[in-house]
């Protein structure tokens, strides 16, 4: 479906390049929900935004992203417009504010359809109403302005608009982080039904910093740290047998129901993520890693440690 090879996306600043995504490779298969997790500033949003829209100061420094046999890193703006919403669609972070506040939902959709050459206005609006019902909103919402909807409802409306033209790959970037738990669960169940039941989309990339959510929805998880991939594997392996020290620390810092401060004190990850203007050499975690060795100042390779399970850490060298 999507194959990303050694992708490098930097930000150009007066002080030099910020290496936000630095040599990232992964693959998203058809029919799967692929999760990406990491702290803020690890490059997860930059990575997916670069797939959809690159604008300065974001610079493509190397590598490729092949979607349906085509390298989308070399497309020009006109070719890009064609694939957005039809092959590849993103529900961005802060998508709660992504809808134009001066237009009704159906007007937003009308513009979108026109852009992609849909002639039949009736048809697309019927589809809109049908989809609104599918996500538990009433048809009336088509005639409403975004401001008339609550956070959870707006998020569902954005999901409908983003997937109206049946994109093959849907990218969901932190779409639940502004919502409370019940709305979170509702959105997660909808995404799941989009791919597994309704078959509106073929694959989903789900980005979050909440490992608990990935545990519930993702088939595979990729963990990023400071612009690099540190571990990729099947969800139950990443959650239950995390291999990379960073993944382990991330999971250990996660509160679970039943763990209380008075009984067990959880530990935060010591230190701060590095500035990506001048990232540490080798494994970028080594200044914070409790197991750091001399060799960690050299770049670790991706090592296969199980079925579909890869880790970039010197501890696992054969």
């Amino acid at each position, binding site marked *: 479906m999507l194959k990303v090879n050694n992708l490098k996306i930097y930000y150009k600043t007066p002080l030099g390049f910020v290496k936000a995504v630095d040599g990232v490779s992964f693959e998203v298969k058809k029919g799967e929900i692929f999760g990406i997790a990491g702290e803020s500033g690890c490059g997860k949003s930059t990575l997916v935004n670069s797939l959809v829209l690159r604008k300065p100061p974001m610079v493509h420094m190397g590598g490729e992203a092949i979607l349906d046999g085509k390298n989308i890193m070399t497309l020009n703006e006109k070719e890009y417009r064609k694939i957005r919403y039809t092959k590849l669609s993103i529900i961005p972070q802060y998508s709660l504010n992504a809808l134009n506040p001066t237009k009704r939902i159906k007007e937003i959709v009308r513009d979108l359809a026109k852009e992609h050459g849909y002639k039949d206005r009736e048809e697309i609006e019927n589809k809109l109403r049908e989809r609104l019902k599918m996500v538990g909103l*009433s048809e009336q919402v088509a005639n409403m302005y975004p401001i008339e909807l609550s956070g959870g409802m707006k998020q569902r409306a954005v999901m409908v608009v983003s997937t109206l033209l049946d994109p093959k790959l849907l990218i969901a970037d932190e779409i639940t982080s502004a919502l409370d738990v019940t709305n979170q*669960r509702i959105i997660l169940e909808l995404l799941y039904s989009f791919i597994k039941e309704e078959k509106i989309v073929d694959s989903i990339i789900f980005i979050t910093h909440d490992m608990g959510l990935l*545990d519930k929805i993702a088939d595979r998880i990729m963990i990023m740290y400071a612009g690099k991939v540190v571990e990729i594997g099947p969800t139950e392996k990443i959650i239950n047998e995390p291999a990379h020290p960073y993944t382990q620390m991330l999971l250990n810092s996660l509160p679970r*129901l039943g763990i209380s401060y008075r009984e067990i004190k959880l530990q935060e990850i010591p230190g701060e993520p590095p500035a990506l203007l001048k990232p540490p050499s080798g494994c970028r975690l080594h200044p914070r890693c409790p197991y750091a060795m001399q060799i960690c100042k050299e770049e670790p390779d991706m090592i296969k440690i199980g079925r579909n399970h890869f880790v970039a850490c010197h501890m696992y060298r054969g």
Partner: protein
Amino acid sequence: MGEIISLHVTCIGGEIVKNAILQVKNLTKVFKTGFIKGFEIRAVDNVNFTINRGEIVSLIGESGSGKTTIGKLILRLLTPTSGQILFRGQDVSKLKGVNLKAYYQNVQGVFQDPFSSVNPLYKVDHLFDIIFTNLLTDADRERQNTLIEGALRSVKLNPKNVLGKYPHQLSGGQLQRVLLARALILRPELLIADEIVSMLDASVRIGVLNLLGEFRNKYGMSVLFITHDLSLGYYISDKAIIMYRGTIVEMGDIKKVFHNPLHPYTQMLLQSVPDLNVKWELKRRIKPEKEEKGIYAIDGCRYAPRCPKKMEICQKKRPELLEVEKDHWVACYIVQ
């Protein structure tokens, strides 16, 4: 000022409440919108609870539940429409002059977005000035510096890395700790912590929560921890208050509320926590909210329109919050 601090046992209506620091009684806040044909939003509707000394209380609810409004009312950033807030037995809304200053020494607030809580044009050091010009006026320069450095160290920051910098040069986690340090310099008896970790990364969150626990253990500080995250609330708190649309639906001992939730709303909330120990069936059984008007005007239980177990009476008369077992209060006809 001395009088307020020395009152450790408060006498209310003849009944002695030991160690109650803050009491909220029949608190109501109504916002009116519109000019001519306006309507009312009863954001906080007849709310009662108590915070004891050294207790961390989680105020849990989704957006629109009124949890932030309660925090603002306690900090006097809003005035209640009716009802009372008593701090050590004194009505907070009546405080003036010296007593009001004393109140702000004892009750401090920290909020969700650290960057919008500070003036970006001033260095971080300036944040502390306000405390020394208004509240701790008798500290000289040297004492001020010792206090600042001590406070920064107590929140696990190195003063050298923070002082002399502008807010944008710090990460969200660092700035939130600076704001926490500022609040803690005063050794407040009660901290209102409104979603203080929700903008922070998962890895940093626990550190900030542990600080709250540490200060409670060391100085007997009480915390009203306002959050929408149930696992964070469970981790740090002794007591939970669950709110829905301006009303308390369930409250009590954290273990009792979380391990034996009795209100259908609490039950649904707990089902929705993406906990690593449970597997979910993604079957779309939870009913999403519909676009509905006038939810704040409902006479009965405000959760009734979404409740799977609603009865006829639920829509007519609001159930009272009653103690169903020791330290466990529920407002629902099913259990009453």
